[in-house]
């Protein structure tokens, strides 16, 4: 190379013409040679400078990228407020980058020719292929200048595209594009989307540049989608449709993007991602359902589809411990506190058992969840009463259904349990994810009534409570449906055994016998009734729960009638006589006053008071107390019943008067008209007042329900009231009446009604 005549200047000119990027300033002309001119190759070969030139060119390319192209590319990513432009913005950024990339790639082509001609084989950045080396360089420079907040533009671009895909799935024939909000025929979203992905793919930038954003976007999108479709709806199964949605929207959209991935690993990559997404979908769905589980349980059986979904999800996820913890917490904060009535706790308890039976047939979860409920129910005084009364109550209810299911009550006697020895081959250990419990040696009965009895560990307590309630019911409604009670008793006997319930059988027989005896006595020619039609409930004292001992001296007229009845009985049943419980029974009265009339069913004490007021228009508390043998404090309370009906007033302390005419003139006027036309109507009017009071007692129940369940439709409120609140013999209300009542509460701003649901004002 020591040829002094060699024109180095001319040679450099030839080289820089072939590689304009080597000029100063470096140039990246719009149109470049497709390949290296022969002359330049020769010159370089001659000077043996191929490697040096290659190095110089690549350095210049890097410099160009670093100083010019990449900063310009990233300048597109500055945050703007024009959300609508973001789609095009990213598209343009990629277009710009690609355009420059192609120009650089062309230079690489020339370098390759040069390398071949000069036998240079040394790899560049570990790549034998210079095209690959360029990709690496571009990626490296891009990432080295990565702005902090670049993700938003990418997210925005892909989110719009994904939305478009999603609504295409939902409804074809959409006039508007959901991405750019333009009319379909001018929208270029699809083309721009494809073009961008294609270019990113060619530059091998899909994964490095947008991969993470895509993952974030898709996860968020799935989460939002699930949240949207699962919100407050438990009556449809979503698993299948979710999986379908994932395939048809998310996965197929991803395939559209990665179709252009030049690395050619799209298939495997998508498959892997597919698995990840499915498991993410299951996880997200399961978590949402677990968060909703308390409400799902409360709405059992309407929520069965949601429960089924959850059952299928649990083995595919790792969320059982999370479920246990979440549900326990929900139970504590929403159920097991003094604001919830015992009967509501019981309903929730039954629903819990039924729901968990579906979720976890092995029963361990059930045991873990119900233990705190058991402890809690034990601490409440009215639990047995609530269980028994809902067992025997009118109409469909959960516990009564359970009773019909049969099965004798198994009381845990702490006996070691035969864990089903025949089944030893199929025995599996309890899953360790349930909370370990000391009682796991006991049989896991899932029979609800047995479980409830086990809360107390004694059938006797239950049966006694039932007997007391039955006695109350029989005595307060003589005409009650004994047939039904007998049917019920038969069911209870299947559960609790004959001996426990034998007393109740006798009680029911007493009522049936009494009806027969009454008929006999009425037909007895020696028996007469002057003006008081009499009947009696004749009970076998040994078999009934003890009666409250209250004294009451009946009015002479009645006492005489009772004597007649007693002797008729003695004649009918030789050697037997009657002991009257004067304070018990029911008296049907018709009261006609100067300006109104009432017809009522009252207790003997109330009737006796009025009989005395019929004799004397006024009584001092003391005198009446002496005549009736009722302590004055109790008597005062009884008198207040008639005061509230406006029949009796206390004009001066301790002196009571019969009130023939009501004081309030306005009311009088109306009542007069009614009384003249229909005597019984005015009784109805007063019955309506009573009604209002009764409905008011439901209000606290309704408040409780809405506090716990947020919103409820009319039917559900009625159903729940039926279950818990309608317990007295007369307290019932039909759905129409309830609606009128609730609507009044809405007018008084104590309730809010919207979309067919009632809720409390905030």
């Amino acid at each position, binding site marked *: 190379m020591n040829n002094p005549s060699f024109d180095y200047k001319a040679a450099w000119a030839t080289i820089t013409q072939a590689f304009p990027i080597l000029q100063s300033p470096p140039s990246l002309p719009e149109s470049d040679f497709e390949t290296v001119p022969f002359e330049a190759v020769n010159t370089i070969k001659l000077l043996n400078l191929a490697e040096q030139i290659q190095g110089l060119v690549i350095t210049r390319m890097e410099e160009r990228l670093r100083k010019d192209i990449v900063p310009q590319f990233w300048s597109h990513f500055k945050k703007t407020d024009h959300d609508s432009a973001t789609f095009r913005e990213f598209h343009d950024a990629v277009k710009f980058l690609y355009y420059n990339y192609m120009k650089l790639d062309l230079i690489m082509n020339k370098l390759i020719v040069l390398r071949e001609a000069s036998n240079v084989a040394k790899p560049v950045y570990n790549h034998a292929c210079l095209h690959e080396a360029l990709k690496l360089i571009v990626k490296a420079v891009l990432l080295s200048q990565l702005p902090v907040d670049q993700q938003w533009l990418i997210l925005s671009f892909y989110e719009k595209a994904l939305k478009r895909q999603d609504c295409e799935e939902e409804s074809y024939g959409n006039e508007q594009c959901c991405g750019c909000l333009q009319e379909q025929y001018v929208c270029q979203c699809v083309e721009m989307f494809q073009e961008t992905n294609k270019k990113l793919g060619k530059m091998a930038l899909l994964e490095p540049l947008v991969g993470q954003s895509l993952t974030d976007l898709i996860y968020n999108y799935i989460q939002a989608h699930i949240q949207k479709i699962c919100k407050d709806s438990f009556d449809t199964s979503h698993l299948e449709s979710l999986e379908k949605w994932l395939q048809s929207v998310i996965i197929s959209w991803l395939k559209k993007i990665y179709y252009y991935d030049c690395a050619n690993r799209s298939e495997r990559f998508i498959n892997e991602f597919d698995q990840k997404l499915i498991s993410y979908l299951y996880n997200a769905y399961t978590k949402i359902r677990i968060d909703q589980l308390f409400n799902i349980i409360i709405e059992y059986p309407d929520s069965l589809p949601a429960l089924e979904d959850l059952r299928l999800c649990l083995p595919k996820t790792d969320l059982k411990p999370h479920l246990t913890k979440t549900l326990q917490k929900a139970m504590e904060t929403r159920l097991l506190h003094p604001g919830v009535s015992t009967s509501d706790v019981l309903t929730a308890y039954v629903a819990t058992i039924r729901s968990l039976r579906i979720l976890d047939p092995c029963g361990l979860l059930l045991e873990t969840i119900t233990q705190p409920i058991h402890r809690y129910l034990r601490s409440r005084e009215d639990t047995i009463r609530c269980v028994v009364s809902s067992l025997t109550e009118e109409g469909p209810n959960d516990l009564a259904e359970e009773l019909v299911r049969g099965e004798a009550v198994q009381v845990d006697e702490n006996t070691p349990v035969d864990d089903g020895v025949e089944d030893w081959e199929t025995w599996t250990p309890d899953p360790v994810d349930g909370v370990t419990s000391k009682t796991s040696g006991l049989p896991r009965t899932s029979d609800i009534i047995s479980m409830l009895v086990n809360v107390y560990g004694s059938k006797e307590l239950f049966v006694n409570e039932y007997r007391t309630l039955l006695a109350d019911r029989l005595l307060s409604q003589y005409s009650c449906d004994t047939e039904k009670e007998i049917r019920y008793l038969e069911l209870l006997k299947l559960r609790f055994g004959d001996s426990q319930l034998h007393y109740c059988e006798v009680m029911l027989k007493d009522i049936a016998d009494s009806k027969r005896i009454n008929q006999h006595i009425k037909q007895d020619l020696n028996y007469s009734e002057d003006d008081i039609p009499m009947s*009696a409930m004749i009970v076998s*004292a040994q078999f009934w729960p003890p009666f409250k001992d209250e004294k009451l001296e009946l009015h002479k007229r009645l006492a005489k009638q009772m004597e007649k009845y007693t002797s008729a009985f003695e004649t009918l049943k030789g050697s037997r006589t009657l002991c009257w419980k004067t304070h018990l029974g029911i008296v*049907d009265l*018709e009261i006609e006053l100067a300006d109104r009339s009432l017809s009522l069913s009252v207790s003997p004490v109330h*009737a006796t008071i*009025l009989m005395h007021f019929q004799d004397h228009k006024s009584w001092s508390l003391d005198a009446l107390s002496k005549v009736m043998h009722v302590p004055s404090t109790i008597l005062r309370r009884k008198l207040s019943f008639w005061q509230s009906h406006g029949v009796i007033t206390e004009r001066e302390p301790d002196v009571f008067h019969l009130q023939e005419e009501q004081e309030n003139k306005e009311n009088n006027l109306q009542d007069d008209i009614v009384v003249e036309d229909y005597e019984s109507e005015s009784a109805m009017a007063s019955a309506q007042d009573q009604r209002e009071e009764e409905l008011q007692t439901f209000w606290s129940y309704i408040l409780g329900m809405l506090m716990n369940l947020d919103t409820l439709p009319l039917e559900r409120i009625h159903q729940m009231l039926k279950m818990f609140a309608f317990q007295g013999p007369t307290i019932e209300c039909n759905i129409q009446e309830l609606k009128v009542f609730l609507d009044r509460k809405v007018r008084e701003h104590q309730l809010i009604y919207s979309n067919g649901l009632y809720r409390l004002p905030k």
Partner: protein
Amino acid sequence: MKLTIKNWTGVATWRWVANDDNCGICRMPFDGCCPDCKLPGDDCPLVWGQCSHCFHMHCIVKWLQSQPVNQQCPMCRQGWKFNNK
């Protein structure tokens, strides 16, 4: 005021008119029933002897069957005769 009692349903317990509360044989209350019975009253009646002692009918019949020779009242040891009053 005109007060009409349309119906008065009273509550009463029934009992046997006997000198004693319990049966001298089974020691159970008369108003209940003998150990073999489930239902009181008509289904498990009382009977009186001429000695004026009374028992569950089922109890005295069982007693008499167990005494093939001298049929005596278990209370006063007088010969047992039913008093069909």
